[in-house]
């Protein structure tokens, strides 16, 4: 771990893949070269690797935290890993790449700034690569970095690299991704991971670590459309703060400033921001993803689940919601006319599935309108109707006000997640 001096903020990135494509080696290298693996940790996995008769030290043992994962030699769940350099703190959401773990990939992708996609230069763009890219696009991860790995096995050939880059670009043109970068690496030997490769003078771009340290992520949040879902009402009930009524929440979009005219949904009452309290006392403005408490000039009725917005820029207020759903339930499929609990921002309601429009093939992007049985890991376009109006934006505009989860009332499990179209 390194003390962070020039703080570029917190970057979350996701990886997906199997043991073979060098994912664990790459993560291991990032952690090892940034001195985030401790000696006792290293010695512990060295001992286990040796006991199991494995060649070398199996870095996957670092992330596979559950007994079952170690026994079966697979990653079942999302594993979170942390490291930092003097420039930034990083959170890696490491997920398994196989199709049966689509929901884990979706989970890891939901909060990521960057998707790190690994391609074995010898195999090119395979199904798993496509799946990972499609999920990154569906979940609107703002930046993709494609690492073309095992360059050492093709003599660091620029021609091979260009071929695969073109192949990926052709495929990605069908996707909704804006920012894609390519880096030729060898995770095993460390080429272009932390330090520049001496073997690829033809490559003029940055190393992977340099990219991760410097990619601009402040604009990953929506900084234009003001959205403040009210989370909790702060009422001290004491003499010093007798009439105090603060609306606590986390800014989901835009910049809120003292003096701004605002409107509260669903009541439609107007007021002005009197003050904003942050963790260091009063502040003049609040931006995503800050948690603050907003005080208004007027005493109007606002509760949890309401939303504070600007009069001339409001979300859609509707009970009919068009969403892309990823289904998570192992035991039951998504039911047409089924009723579920829906959670959106700080609201909870019930909803009914009105229509299943099509199932999306996660490898070809084709739409299947005939087979509408939606099972675990399937992705489907669905119309649902909620018992009360929700204040929604398109997921493309705002990942916070454009996302929902569905909960099974019988089991209390989270069975589906959705992105508002």
């Amino acid at each position: 771990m390194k003390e962070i001096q020039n703080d570029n903020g917190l970057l979350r990135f996701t990886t997906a893949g199997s043991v073979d494509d060098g994912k664990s080696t790459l993560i291991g290298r990032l952690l090892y070269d940034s001195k985030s693996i401790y000696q006792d940790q290293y010695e512990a996995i060295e001992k286990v690797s040796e006991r199991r008769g494995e060649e070398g030290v199996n870095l996957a043992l670092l992330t596979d935290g559950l007994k079952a994962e170690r026994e079966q030699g697979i990653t079942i769940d999302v594993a979170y890993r942390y490291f930092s350099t003097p420039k930034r703190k990083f959170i890696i959401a490491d997920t398994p790449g196989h199709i049966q773990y689509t929901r884990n990939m979706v989970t890891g992708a939901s909060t990521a700034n960057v998707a790190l996609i690994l391609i074995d230069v010898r195999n090119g763009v395979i199904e798993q690569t496509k799946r990972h890219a499609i999920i990154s696009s569906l979940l609107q991860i703002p930046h993709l970095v494609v690492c073309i790995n095992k360059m050492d096995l093709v003599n660091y050939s620029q021609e091979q690299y260009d071929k695969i880059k073109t192949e990926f670009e052709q495929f990605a043109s069908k996707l909704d991704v804006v920012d894609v970068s390519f880096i030729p690496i060898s995770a095993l030997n460390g080429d272009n991971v932390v330090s520049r490769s001496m073997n690829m003078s033809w490559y003029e771009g940055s190393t992977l670590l340099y990219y991760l340290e410097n990619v601009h992520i402040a604009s990953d949040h929506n900084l234009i459309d003001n959205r403040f879902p009210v989370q909790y009402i702060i009422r001290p009930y004491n003499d010093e703060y007798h009439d105090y009524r603060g609306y606590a929440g986390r800014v989901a979009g835009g910049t809120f400033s003292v003096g701004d005219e605002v409107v509260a949904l669903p009541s439609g009452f107007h007021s002005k921001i009197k003050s904003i309290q942050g963790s260091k006392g009063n502040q003049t403005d609040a931006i995503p993803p800050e948690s603050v408490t907003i005080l208004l000039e007027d005493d109007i009725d606002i509760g949890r689940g309401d939303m504070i917005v600007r009069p001339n820029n409001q979300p859609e207020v509707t009970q009919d919601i068009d969403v892309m759903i990823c289904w998570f339930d192992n035991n039951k499929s998504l039911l047409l006319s089924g009723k579920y609990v829906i959670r959106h921002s700080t609201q909870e309601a019930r909803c009914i599935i009105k229509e299943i429009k099509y199932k999306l093939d996660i490898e070809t992007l084709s739409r299947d309108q005939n087979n509408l049985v939606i099972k675990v890991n399937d992705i489907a376009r669905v119309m649902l109707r909620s018992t009360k109006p929700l204040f929604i934006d398109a997921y493309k505009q705002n990942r916070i006000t454009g996302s929902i989860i569905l909960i099974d009332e019988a089991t209390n499990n989270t069975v589906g997640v959705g992105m508002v179209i």
Partner: protein
Amino acid sequence: MRIVNHLSELESESIYIMREVAAQFDNSVLMFSGGKDSILMVYLAYKAFFPAKIPFPLLHIDTGHNFPETLQYRDKLVEQFGAKLVIGSVQEAIDQGLVAEEKGFNASRNGLQTTALLEAIENGNYDAALGGARRDEEKARAKERFFSHRDEFGQWDPKNQRPELWNLFNSRKNMGEHFRVFPISNWTELDVWQYLAQEEVPLPSLYFAHEREVFERDGTLLADCEYINKRPEEEVFKEVVRCRTIGDMTCTGVWRSDATTVEEIIKEVSTTRMTERGGRTDDRRSESSMEDRKKLGYF
């Protein structure tokens, strides 16, 4: 453009989780061990609800084998924030015959805490217990959710956890079940220290280098005290040490260190090659020691 730095983002995330707990549960409690992570939790809770009081009582599971400094600090903190303190006692659980004291040289009350904790949660009718566990400290904890569901026996089922996406948390449960909630999941040891330094939070003296009577067992230095059975060959000597974690005296290793200020601790933490819980003999009982204890309902 203003950049929200990594500590502010972590702080905002933790405050968001704490407010979700206050909004989604009826009767929550904050598990307080006396260590720096639970001290951080109390400060974050104070900020989350200011100027109102922290809406959760603090729950301390007292093994009866505490460092005396921990209890002094705890009582001062409770007074400072006007918080309510609830104590769950391992000694009482032993006296009532709910658990039996471990025997032998490595006897510890660490494992017995689970029973006292589950008793306290049941007696208090708590539907959520907030804890200061972090994903970076231990491999089973790395798999933990922010909102972690527990069945009516307080058990954790790691292979059947609820997915957590965006900032949407599912707190639904049946009667008798509860949740453990971990607002500082994404903080690392270094983040905690940097934040405590930035906020100038006073800390228990145990974290700073001091001279203490210690002895060595299995490569770890332990503080000499009446609660540990020493082997005849284990000799007590004086050493300048500090704690990196604070738990029960019987299982908390101390480290040779000269760090007497938070700044020196940050320097030490950012250059050390040993994990924080490396000195915790409770984690070293087996490769899945933490996972096994967590399944039963441990912190």
